[in-house]
């Protein structure tokens, strides 16, 4: 191809850009380089040639052009004439203006800067000395040997931090096609693009080293970033010279059980953990701390395993137990305590972003505590962690899944749900899928999968496509993007507690007994019915109305008023005079498109406070479901549009309320709290006929979805078209009057006749809908031969017989069954529900989303797992269940490590991998990699036995060390990463409160149940939103439950919990900070929780602690710290007490005020001044550093 000049210009411009700087700048750079010092080939020139020439003129024979090598000295004297740059063909080829012939070729994309050309010129002019190759290594005067560089610990993190964002997994963001996070990329010979990036054993010949150490800012990498330090460059050089060993990121290789190391101090280890810890300490020339005193140890382990301190009895028993295994026995005792499950669950709730509200906007209430119960039980039952994993991620998909297994899946419904009016549901559907994958990734794999939402992961080999493949596992559930505002949103299950299940079983037995009693009646039922039918046929016009659940009935037999279950409400006819016409049954009301009947306030359905309370939802409007109902009516329309009945009004934005309408001949049931985006509606596919009577039944099951609507015309089930599925608020409570033939809005009024309007408070079954639609009276049906009757006619007369006309003993037995069945229905409806995962029958499509935007789908993706991790087993379908099983496969490199690391973090404050949430290449390298792998493999080999893992940690010598800081320990290892001393950590938020309640004897221990609302300053929730949830403080025992049961409103969490660094529960958190702030001080000093606890503690001190102030104060101190105070401490406290006592004796009113705080009454037998003074001391003890710290 012949190049045109224009073409060339373009090419040169492209090259200039690709090299990354303007021409002018490059010239400047060249000037800067001009220095007096002679040019050294290996230091100055070879790097330039390596990058620009070696690809074609280097060691690689296959690529070599023109048989010219520039990496050996052979070229000196041929293409280079020493002392004569201008005469050297190499130099000429570098500088010629002719596009053809200039080197490097334009097509290579490489070019020398002016400064580099100048270097080459000077080197040749100065004599083109080859020099000594070792001169390249400036540090250590040629000493290549030094420390051995560990790739995983030292080199990969360097590359990750400095290179991966442009030369990593992200295909789109990748520069010049170079990839340094995988071996193939790092060692690739880049041919025309500069030769091999890394040449094992030859740092000098490795492009990488040249580029990171280049002086020329245009050459130096990372581009535009801060240069690597000399020691970092040295690390790279050493690593390459030592052979450039490469292995995948440590966390992506399955752990193998390491050999337990030998240690010098062989007596110290109690189990293998200690060998690993001690080996490292010995390597650093350190010794472990001595074992802490036994009281401190018992307090430490009791707090760690149960979240509350040891009681004085437990402490005394332990201190008096001389057995060699006294400590192990104590640990075993703690591991079987029910408090253990509560303690572990508290950690898990943070990771699972558990809350009692939906999290967005008005942040309405939900009910997920049955899942919390599941977690507590799972820990207490020591459920193996693999099962714990599978059930929470996919318990619903297990064969014959039990209720518990379904409840477990609430884990991935704990995320926030948006029900704000006006949202675009598809947008939030995406957010939920993303949240599940991010959370699952963080909790089980320690991967920041969410980083791959918008583009390929910058640091870990996870593509954007793989991210959405993971989403596809979690996206296939029958959910809406818009949640219900004050309720659980589908899919959900009714999840009775064990007690409730027993209650239900008891009732089932009664139902069975009643049915049996009915069956056992010594009566021939059919014969009795036939006998009665014969007499009924004789009576003229005998009829019967289904009364079970009937709320409203307008028969229009010459009177517009109807009957209601509540008090009579005036019924008025508006816009016309009454007109009674021939009805389907007797007479009917006639409508002319103007007149209508205002039937006043009919009974509400959908406001069943009793059900709400039993479900643990105390707030108005917080019903799990709306209530069910049925409308039944005869219509004889003469126009295609008109309101049949309604309780609706015209709002500013259209009709609000509910109603049954004719819309262009079709029957529509509409329920809305805001017309366009908050309601449920469905419409019949078939038209009703004009000018004839038809019976219409519409039922609604309270589910807030159009699928909960059914319709029957003349008893026949109709096909429906769903019209609106946007419910967020509750729908069936309406403040508007019942209108027949009209609505409060401007919708067309009814024309024609309406008869026999009925409203039931339940969903009429198909057969009952047919019965209600049967106009023939009992007399008429009775007169027919049973074989000639329709099914509905037979059903009607049989129902009428059983409910009203049968002999008394039958009626009684039938009513007994009906009563019990109704009771059972109510009991079932009162049970808590929980939002769960469920698979759609028909797979929901998942797409890769460009830039992560819901409205910008790219190609469709299918469930899968990231390719960099082990594949799913052959032949297994990729779905949520196989994903869960894959996580806990013994070959998975991450799950076990991530899990044992979190437990380690729980005990020692910092994980072996400090970044507990990130085991990827940006995460921190483990402080003790072999220990981590030993724990992980032991954990798996034990069958994922969680308690065994805990036991091995807390019984280790490592754990038992004193946490006193000795010598320069703190300066050398402030975070105690080497664990040369025991952990000393401020207690986590829930433990601070639980400990105070326990010390005060206030703690009410009851495992499980709905959330409770302890003390909270008034108005906190009101500040967030007016008219939202109201904080109704608990009374009695619920004020003193363990903190994991405290009601968690996501947008305004419990204030003291947040002050002490709890996660907000808005997103998954597996590592929280520990700050130290004045707000914490104010809380512990002044919050009524702690003031009341202090007073109760003071009462305990006075009644249980002895008679002298010294004894009493010592007892309080013991309760808090497991120790008696040292004499200096005792002096401080006792002196303080005396001063407080002096003051309160002078001001007994103040004393009374102080000791009356809180709901628990004070002990009136105690002197108030003394009690107040002890209260101050007790409060001080609750605030004491040694109390709120695990030592």
């Amino acid at each position, binding site marked *: 191809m012949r190049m045109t000049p224009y073409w060339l210009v373009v090419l040169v411009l492209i090259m200039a850009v690709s090299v990354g700087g303007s021409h002018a700048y490059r010239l400047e750079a060249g000037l800067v380089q001009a220095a007096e010092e002679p040019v050294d080939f290996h230091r100055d020139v070879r790097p330039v040639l390596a990058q620009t020439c070696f690809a074609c003129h280097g060691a690689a024979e296959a690529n070599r052009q023109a048989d010219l090598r520039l990496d050996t000295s052979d070229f000196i004297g041929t293409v280079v004439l020493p002392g004569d740059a201008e005469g050297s063909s190499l130099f000429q080829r570098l500088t010629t203006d002719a596009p053809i012939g200039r080197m490097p070729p334009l097509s290579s994309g490489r070019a020398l800067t002016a400064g580099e050309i100048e270097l080459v010129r000077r080197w040749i002019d100065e004599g083109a000395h080859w020099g000594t190759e070792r001169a390249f290594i400036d540090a250590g005067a040629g000493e290549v040997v030094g420390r051995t560089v560990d790739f995983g610990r030292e080199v990969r993190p360097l590359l990750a*931090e*400095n290179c991966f964002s442009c030369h990593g997994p992200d295909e789109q963001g990748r520069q010049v096609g170079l990839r340094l996070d995988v071996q193939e990329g790092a060692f690739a010979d880049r041919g025309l693009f500069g030769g091999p990036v890394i040449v094992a054993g030859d740092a000098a010949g490795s492009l990488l080293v040249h580029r990171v150490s280049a002086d020329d800012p245009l050459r130096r990498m990372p581009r*535009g970033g*801060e240069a690597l330090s000399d020691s970092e460059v040295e690390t790279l050089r050493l690593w390459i010279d030592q052979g450039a060993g490469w292995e995948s990121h440590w966390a992506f290789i399955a752990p193998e059980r390491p050999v337990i190391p030998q240690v010098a101090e062989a007596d110290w280890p109690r189990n293998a953990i200690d060998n690993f810890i001690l080996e490292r300490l010995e390597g650093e020339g350190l010794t472990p701390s001595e074992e802490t005193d036994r009281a401190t140890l018992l307090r430490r382990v009791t707090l760690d395993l149960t979240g509350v301190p040891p009681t004085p009895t437990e402490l005394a028993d332990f201190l008096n137990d001389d057995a060699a295994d006294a400590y192990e026995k104590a640990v075993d005792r703690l591991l079987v305590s029910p408090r253990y499950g509560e303690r572990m669950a508290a950690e898990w709730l943070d990771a699972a972003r558990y809350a009692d509200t939906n999290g967005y*906007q*008005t942040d309405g209430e939900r009910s997920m505590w049955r899942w919390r119960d599941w977690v507590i039980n799972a820990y207490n039952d020591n459920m193996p962690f693999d099962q714990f994993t599978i059930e929470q991620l996919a318990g619903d998909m297990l064969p014959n899944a039990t209720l518990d297994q379904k409840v477990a899946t609430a884990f991935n419904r704990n995320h*926030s749900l*948006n029900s*704000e*009016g*006006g949202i*675009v549901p598809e947008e939030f559907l995406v957010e939920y899928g993303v949240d599940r994958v991010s959370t699952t990734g963080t909790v089980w794999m320690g991967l920041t999968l*969410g*980083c791959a939402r918008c583009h390929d992961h*910058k640091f870990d080999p996870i593509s954007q496509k793989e991210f959405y493949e993971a989403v596809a596992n979690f996206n296939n559930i029958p959910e809406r993007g818009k949640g219900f505002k004050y309720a659980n949103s589908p899919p959900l299950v009714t999840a009775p507690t064990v007690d409730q299940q027993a209650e239900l079983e008891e009732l089932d037995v009664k139902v069975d007994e009643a049915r049996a009693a009915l069956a056992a009646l010594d009566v021939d039922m059919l014969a009795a019915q036939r006998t009665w039918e014969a007499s009924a046929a004789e009576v003229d016009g005998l009829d019967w109305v289904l009364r079970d659940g009937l709320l409203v009935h307008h028969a229009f037999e010459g009177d517009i008023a109807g009957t209601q279950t509540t008090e009579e409400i005036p019924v008025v006819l508006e816009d016309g005079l009454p007109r009674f016409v021939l009805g389907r049954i007797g007479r009917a009301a006639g409508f002319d498109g103007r007149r209508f009947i205002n039937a006043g306030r009919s009974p509400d359905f959908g406001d069943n406070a009793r059900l709400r309370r039993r479900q643990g939802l105390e707030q108005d409007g917080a019903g799990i479901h709306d209530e069910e109902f049925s409308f039944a009516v005869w219509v004889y329309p003469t126009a295609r549009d008109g309101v049949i009945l309604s309780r609706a009004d015209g709002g*500013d934005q259209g009709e609000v309320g509910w109603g049954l309408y004719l819309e262009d001949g079709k029957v529509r049931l509409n329920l809305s709290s805001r017309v*366009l*985006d908050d309601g449920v509606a469905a419409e019949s596919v078939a038209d009703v006929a004009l000018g004839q009577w038809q019976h219409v039944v519409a039922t609604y099951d309270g589910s807030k979805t159009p699928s909960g609507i059914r319709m029957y015309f003349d008893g026949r089930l109709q096909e429906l078209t769903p019209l609106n599925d946007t419910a967020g608020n509750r729908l069936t409570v309406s403040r508007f009057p019942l209108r027949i033939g009209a609505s409060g809005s401007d919708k067309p009024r009814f024309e024609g006749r309406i008869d026999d309007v009925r409203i039931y408070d339940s969903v009429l079954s198909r057969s009952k809908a047919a019965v209600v639609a049967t106009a023939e009276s009992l007399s008429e049906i009775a007169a027919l031969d049973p074989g000639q009757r329709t099914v509905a006619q037979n059903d009607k007369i049989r129902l009428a017989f059983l409910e009203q006309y049968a002999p008394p003993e039958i009626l009684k037995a039938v009513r007994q069954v009906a009563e019990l069945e109704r009771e059972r229905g109510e009991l079932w409806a009162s049970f808590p529900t929980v939002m769960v995962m469920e698979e759609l029958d028909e797979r929901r499509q998942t797409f890769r989303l460009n830039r992560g935007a819901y409205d910008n789908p790219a190609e469709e993706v299918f469930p899968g797992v990231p390719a960099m991790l082990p594949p799913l087993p052959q032949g297994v379908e990729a779905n949520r269940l196989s994903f869960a099983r894959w996580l806990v496969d013994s070959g998975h490199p991450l799950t076990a490590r991530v899990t044992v690391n979190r437990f380690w973090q729980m005990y020692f*404050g910092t994980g072996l991998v400090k970044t507990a949430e990130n085991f990827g290449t940006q995460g921190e390298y483990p402080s003790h990699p072999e220990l981590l792998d030993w724990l992980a493999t032991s954990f798996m080999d034990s069958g994922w036995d969680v308690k065994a893992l805990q036991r091995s940690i807390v019984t280790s010598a490592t754990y038992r060390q004193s946490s*006193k800081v000795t010598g320069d320990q703190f300066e050398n290892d*402030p*975070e105690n990463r080497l664990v040369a001393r025991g952990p*000393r950590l*401020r207690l986590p938020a829930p433990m601070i409160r639980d400990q105070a309640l326990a010390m005060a004897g206030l703690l009410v221990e009851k495992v499980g149940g709905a959330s409770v609302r302890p003390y909270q*300053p*008034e*108005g906190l929730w009101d*500040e967030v*939103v*007016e008219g939202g949830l109201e904080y109704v403080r608990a009374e009695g025992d619920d004020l003193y439950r363990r903190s994991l049961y405290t009601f968690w409103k996501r*947008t305004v*969490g419990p204030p003291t919990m*947040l*002050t002490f660094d709890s996660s*907000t529960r808005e*997103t998954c958190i597996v590592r929280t*900070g*520990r*700050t*130290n702030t*004045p*707000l*914490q*001080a*104010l*809380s512990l000093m*002044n919050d009524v929780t702690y*003031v009341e606890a202090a007073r109760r503690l003071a009462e305990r001190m006075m009644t249980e602690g002895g008679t002298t102030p010294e004894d009493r104060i010592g007892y309080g101190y013991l309760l808090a710290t497991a120790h008696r105070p040292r004499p200096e401490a005792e002096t401080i*406290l006792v*002196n*303080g007490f005396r*001063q407080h006592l002096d*003051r309160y004796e002078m001001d007994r009113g*103040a004393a009374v005020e102080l000791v009356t705080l809180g709901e628990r009454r004070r002990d009136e037998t105690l002197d108030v001044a003394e009690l*107040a003074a002890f209260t101050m001391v007790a*409060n001080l003890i609750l*605030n004491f*550093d*040694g109390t709120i*710290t695990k030592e």
Partner: protein
Amino acid sequence: MDVCLERLLSRRRFLELTSSGIGTAALATLFGQDLIAQSGRASAASGALPGLPHHAPRAKRVIYLFQSGAPSQHELWDYKPKLQEMVGEDLPPSVRGNQRVTTMTAGQERFPLVPSKFKFSRHGKTQTWVSELMPHTAKIVDELCFIKTMHTEAINHDPGITFFQTGAQLAGRPSMGAWLTYGLGTMNSDLPTFVAMVSKGSARVGQPLYDRLWGSGFLPTRFQGVKFLSTGDPVLYLSNPVGVDQATRRRYLDDLGALNQLKEEEYGDPETSTRIAQYEMAYRMQTSVPELTDLSDEPESTFELYGPDARKPGTFARNCLLARRLAERDVRFIQCFHRGWDQHTRLPEGITTQARDVDQPQAALVQDLKQRGLLDDTLVIWGGEFGRSAYCQGVFNDETYGRDHHPRCFTIWMAGGGVKPGVSYGESDDFSYNIAKDPVHIHDLHATMLHLLGIDHTKLTFGYQGRNFRLTDVHGRVVGDVLA
């Protein structure tokens, strides 16, 4: 630039390490006086990050008057006579384009244009158009810098407000004030660095305002805003329990300090000495906060200026006055949230009372700051989470008309702190629907605000989950034209 951030990460990692580690956190305080300051890596006592400020700041502090619910630009600031001409006509489809609208109006059959019911007139030397709803603010227009071309991606309140406060629509990121506290540290050791206050609008029930809006996200919790409450203690648990006087508290703290001192001697844990210091700070706050909120030293003229509502706790007027008192005491970031601007229907009535709530106090605040010489280095920002549609939502008449959310173009204003006074930046189209010229995104506003405070928004970062986060994500541009 990315690479540059990567380099910074290593330093940030150090900070992260030190802020959550047991011992090193020992020197930390709630208000940003962390170990960095004490270890001499930053300017004395302020607790600023090393290298901050990046350049000479124009503003030392920010008062953000956040108008929650999204006030209509049409009735307040952005005068559009064209709407009067085209009243009742449908918004031309070419103007609407493919704009997504909320599902509240997406189903509407028509999009009739509705003009402001309220009259506009010109004010000040700059002859700026302002609505009759804002008579007091109209008098200070020459101090204000309007941005007529704000835009956002969010179309609903929760994501919208969260976006303004944290730079992201979803929960989890630190709020603006938390970033500032983290970056710049404190200027007052007796008060929080970042204070949030909430007031209720007269118009109607407002949109919720939650902890995350002044939260610290993934930053250490000590950087979160302290919410001043309008009832009870201004700061949670500030008051001693009944029956405990300040002398008793002093005595108590002396004992507690002595006891903790013994503990420190025994265990050698620096965290213990930090705890002693925190209790002393708590004690100082017990004095400094009530002194701050006690307005008895304010002369009558103050209440004339701010209006009679300033005497009522929990009003916007009161919070504006408190904002000035906080600014005087060098609190860095002061946020007054005012609720109630969400007028989907019956907008004229709602916006009238709402404007009455804010007009006088906000004008008073700007004037007051100016009189006291504080306006020069205090940046005042006024605005909501998005704007409102040019077309009508609800029943179309001049009593009942309403407007839906509108993210694509809306108005905010700024004053003081190094912004140009008497300026109107950006041009909206004839419908204030699209931006005709010079768009300003939330990220740009954040970048500009940080710039005024001496921060390069690309360099204030925090490493979390393997990534360097910043307030402006990977976006943001300093709006140079509004800088004085």
